[in-house]
């Protein structure tokens, strides 16, 4: 079944949302989603890196030898991450400070490596770009929504604007790690509800989209859709 261009683009937003359905890149998402602006900033950074690296890896897929593909992907991704980080340092130093180590860590972000391995190395440049944009939008939306919920409940603000702060005592645990896991679980449940569990079912049955599929010995029998 060949996907249309539009399907490739929208795939990552809900149906194969990288964070909530593929459950990739959980660590940075939980860590940075304490303030909406951080979620948005991280999301856009990932979007840019993911799109660029998908294009580059797809274009180079015939040149990269199969045995050393992971180091090659890392080099490509790292170059784009460096560009993004330098741009952030130059134009948005406060955001760069807030995101800290999580910007350089995009290099080893599972979403980007996963899409390179599962999509860009097998598809055309245009398709890979669309996949990168779609997955990036999916990531940005997830990180921003999660951060908005946590910021609203935990600090009483959204994007730094006071909403309930001062009138209702903020539930500070929401901006700490337990609150992150809690919101993460609720959003996964919501996406499962929206897709009526189809997204997850599909993941369990097929290895498509799983970054480990290439190294996975039990591909079809077990599904192998673990992170």
């Amino acid at each position, binding site marked *: 079944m060949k996907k249309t261009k539009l399907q490739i683009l929208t795939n990552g937003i809900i149906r194969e949302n990288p964070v909530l359905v593929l459950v990739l890149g959980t660590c940075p998402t939980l860590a940075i989603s304490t303030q909406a602006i951080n979620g948005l900033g991280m999301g856009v950074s990932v979007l840019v890196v993911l799109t660029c690296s998908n294009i580059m890896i797809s274009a180079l897929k015939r040149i990269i030898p199969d045995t050393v593909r992971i180091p090659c992907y890392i080099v490509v991704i790292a170059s784009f991450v460096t560009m993004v980080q330098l741009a952030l340092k130059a134009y948005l130093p406060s955001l760069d400070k807030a995101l800290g180590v999580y910007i350089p860590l995009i290099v080893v972000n599972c979403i980007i490596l996963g899409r390179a391995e599962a999509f860009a190395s097998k598809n055309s440049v245009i398709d890979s770009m669309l996949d990168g944009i779609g997955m990036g939008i999916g990531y940005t939306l997830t990180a921003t929504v999660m951060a908005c919920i946590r910021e609203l409940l935990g600090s009483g603000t959204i994007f730094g604007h006071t909403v309930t702060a001062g009138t209702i*005592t903020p*539930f*500070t*645990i929401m901006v*700490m790690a*337990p609150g992150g896991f809690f919101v993460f679980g609720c959003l996964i449940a919501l996406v499962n509800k929206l897709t009526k569990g189809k997204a997850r079912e599909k993941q369990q049955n097929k290895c498509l989209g799983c970054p480990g599929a290439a190294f996975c010995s039990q591909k079809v029998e077990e599904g192998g859709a673990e992170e």
Partner: protein
Amino acid sequence: MAERHTNLIVASAPHVVSPANTASIMRDVLIALIPALAVSVYVFGIRALMLSVCCVVFCVFFEWLSRRIMKRSNTIGDLSAAVTGLILAFNLPVRLPFWMAAVGCLIAIVVVKQLFGGLGQNFANPAIVGRITLFIGFASPMANWTITSRMSQAILSAAEVDATTGATPLALSAAGLPVPTNMEMFLGLINGSMGEISAAALLLGGIYLIVRKVISPAIPVSFLATVAVLSLVFGLDPIFQLCAGGVMLGAIFMATDYVTSPITTTGRIIFGIGCGVFTMLIRVYASYPEGVSFAILLMNILTPHIDRLTRHKTFKPAEGGASK
């Protein structure tokens, strides 16, 4: 054939049936909590009763609501939600706003209990997690200790110096200030969470539960003994350490939760010792003055491992045996 051997009854297990069921056990726990509630109302006034009722009502309501939304059978009749509500209320300061207590009930019943499958499936004691979540989430309202005229002189004089919030005996002790006498500590003429103040009332409830065979003494005794021994090791007053904070409430009512404590007696003793060790380590070395709830939560999580290590030998596979 059956008519000829009427004294030989063939039936499948279980052969020993007890009249006890979840509701009767939970009713006994509620009865055992009454003395502590009475002391709490005596010391803190009528709001202690109001907050307790509020927690019970919210817990039962959330239990009913979540079972209904998840289209499962209604379980409010087993009274476990009411027990969770009352124990959670005992862990709160008396002036806590009602809506914050409701948030704690929501976490305890919906997140910890029903999302994991209801009574018997929860990985940790619901009331403990409710309390810890509130404690971390609403740090200052949860440390807003009320002072009333019925309390010990040591607390009243400390409150005169620092009029905003009264320090609990453990905080006074940590600050090196004079603490209430051991008799006042034992009777509960002190400030703190609503239900934890009176060691005497809690012990009374605990003895009732042990006599009624609702709980085994293994966990409370090993928990309290560990706290006492470690107090001596650290050079502290063991009576004060036993009566202060949530040790009695935790050891008797929260650590003995069937679902989240080990099955075997050996396992229970390990569990109790672990609770005592972590409680004292947190009290002595950590930045929090009190660590009972964290200690119990940690041991709750270790319970499956303790169970696996202390399983009776009859359930072990044969030597060189085949399968699991």
